[in-house]
């Protein structure tokens, strides 16, 4: 394989794998949007909060597996609090109001996390392999590959959960039509708590993975902004969409930056993903896998 082509593939694969990382964040968004109709801007803050809690607890000397369990407990408590203090009081409000509330929530979580655990950067070692696979003449990052595998596992677990369990069915009912779900006896409150808890666990995994890659630092919160093009491209209501979105955006931004970035000044990664997402949205305004709203008159 020629050197140029090999380099292209390395960038491509690296992009695909980082795309999967964004998909992880996006999956958390989609879960919450599907069940509570809320576009959760606090997702990034939740990821950071989960990671900080995990690191904070394990730094106290607790075994990492136990720390993870304790963090899950914390995230479930958080889900309860969010449902009790916030969700049940904003039921019929406009989308913008709901979005605003999550921004407020993100500020609260960011402040709380730093207050409790401090603002320094922590490194996180969870035993994922580092180093490179060598395929032919190409280097593939082992860490990124393991992350992709983890993401795949999560998707399978979620798919099983939604399709095969009773709870999953109630979640889908609520996502489809709140009123109808209530009328058949589904407890919306329990559904919300479950969904936010599940999302919390996804955030923990995401935070762990990102934290291991970048270190657990406040900038982790910004992954939310980076994941937004992925969510929007895939469609707000689709987990497969989140994955496909990540697989498109990840390589696109890497390739653009590597091949065109130097010509126009570099640091294009902040806006290229958004432009790519918009380009797709112009053709399919509800995202690749999203559901189009029907206009009935």
């Amino acid at each position, binding site marked *: 394989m020629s050197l140029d082509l090999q380099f292209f593939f390395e960038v491509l694969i690296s992009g695909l794998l980082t795309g999967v990382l964004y998909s992880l964040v996006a999956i958390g968004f989609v879960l919450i949007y599907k069940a509570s109709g809320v576009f959760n801007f606090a997702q990034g803050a939740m990821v950071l909060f989960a990671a900080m809690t995990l690191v904070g607890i394990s730094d106290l000397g607790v075994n990492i597996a136990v720390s993870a369990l304790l963090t899950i407990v914390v995230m479930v408590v958080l889900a309860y609090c969010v449902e009790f203090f916030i969700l049940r009081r904003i039921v019929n409000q406009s989308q913008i109001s709901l979005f605003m509330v999550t921004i407020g929530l993100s500020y609260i979580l960011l402040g709380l996390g730093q207050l409790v655990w401090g603002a320094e950067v922590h490194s996180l070692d969870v035993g994922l392999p580092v180093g490179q696979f060598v395929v032919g003449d190409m280097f593939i990052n082992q860490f990124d590959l393991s992350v992709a595998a983890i993401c795949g596992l999560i998707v399978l677990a979620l798919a099983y959960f939604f399709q095969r369990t009773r709870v999953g069915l109630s979640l889908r009912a609520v996502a489809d039509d709140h009123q109808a779900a209530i009328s058949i006896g589904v407890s919306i409150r329990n559904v919300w708590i479950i969904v936010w808890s599940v999302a919390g666990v996804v955030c923990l995994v995401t935070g762990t993975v990102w934290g291991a890659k970048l270190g657990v630092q406040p900038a982790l919160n910004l992954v939310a902004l980076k994941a937004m093009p992925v969510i929007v491209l895939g469609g707000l209501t689709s987990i497969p969409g989140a994955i496909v979105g990540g697989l498109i955006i990840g390589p696109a931004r890497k390739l653009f930056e590597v091949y065109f970035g130097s010509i126009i000044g570099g640091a294009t990664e902040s806006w290229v993903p958004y432009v790519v997402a918009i380009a797709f*949205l*112009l053709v399919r305004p509800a995202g690749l896998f999203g559901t189009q709203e029907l206009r009935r008159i």
Partner: protein
Amino acid sequence: MFYRAARRLPTSYSSQFLIIKRPEDRILAALAVGVAIFLLPHIASTYALSTLLVPFLIFSISAIGLNLLMGYAGQASLGSGAFMAVGAYASYKLATNVPHIPIVLDFFIGGVAAAAVGIVFGLPSLRMRAFYLAIATLAVQFFIEWLFSKVSWFWNDHASGVVSTPAFSFLGVPIDTPIKGYYFSLAVVALMTLLAVNLTRSHIGRQWMAVRDNETAAQLMGISITKAKLSAFAISSFYCGVAGSLWAFVFLKSLGITSYSIDTSFKIMFMIIIGGIGTIMGSFIGAAFVLIVPILLNMIPATMSLPLSTGVLACLEQIIFGVFIVYFVIVEPQGIVRSVRNLHQKLVAWPLTVNR
């Protein structure tokens, strides 16, 4: 008791167009204007003038701009910071490269430039709605931030990305002291508020609200959705552009892209949601709230002599601000302006009660 609560029936159409309908309120408004023009600049400290009042006035303009777009026309936008930047940099380029034009006129042209950019970046609104549109406007925000930090032509290729803005004068008076800055901003705010109020009560404002409330029905009535949405983006960006220019030339006296970041866009959005989305008055209330609360929060530990480190303080402030936002959305989703209006109703009827 303070008001004549019995209904005054209108006898002419022109009387329907008065901005302040009750004579008692007009007295109040005249008082407020009098205080703002004659009293305030003299009793307020230079600190208050320059760090509170002038920013309040300037951001009120941005808040009105965003309110016209999001509150009246119902189009999501997270790019208001970017449009402020476009106005600021356009004015800067004009001020430094085309000296024959008075700088105050540059502010206006900068606003027009922002309006043009607003139309272009408002095009996705014809295809997308709500969140998808909000994300598209985020693209604008990030792209413009990138543009004004990488392409040095915009700041005349100075070595540092932050440049000082030239001094300017208005009608022969140099705007170089906080008091003059205050009066100038006040004048601009007054003019732009009047224009905004006229717009919102005209058929164009009604078209915006129709598109917001029921786009399909609006289209079926023959309203041009394209014209409505793009004009909303244009006007909104114009307002933000002018505010951006004022921010650089009157307040900061310098120009750098960091003042127009996504945090600014969020700040403006908070202003209109907390103040009252879809109202002009709410833009002012929200601007005052969002600008003053952090300052108050900062002052509390000092006055209470609490031994908190700056780090802890910053965290607490963040938490409290977040709680405020959540609280307001839950308790007063229509903004503070709704509480003010309820209070006004009660005052009009006092000592009788309002039966609504």
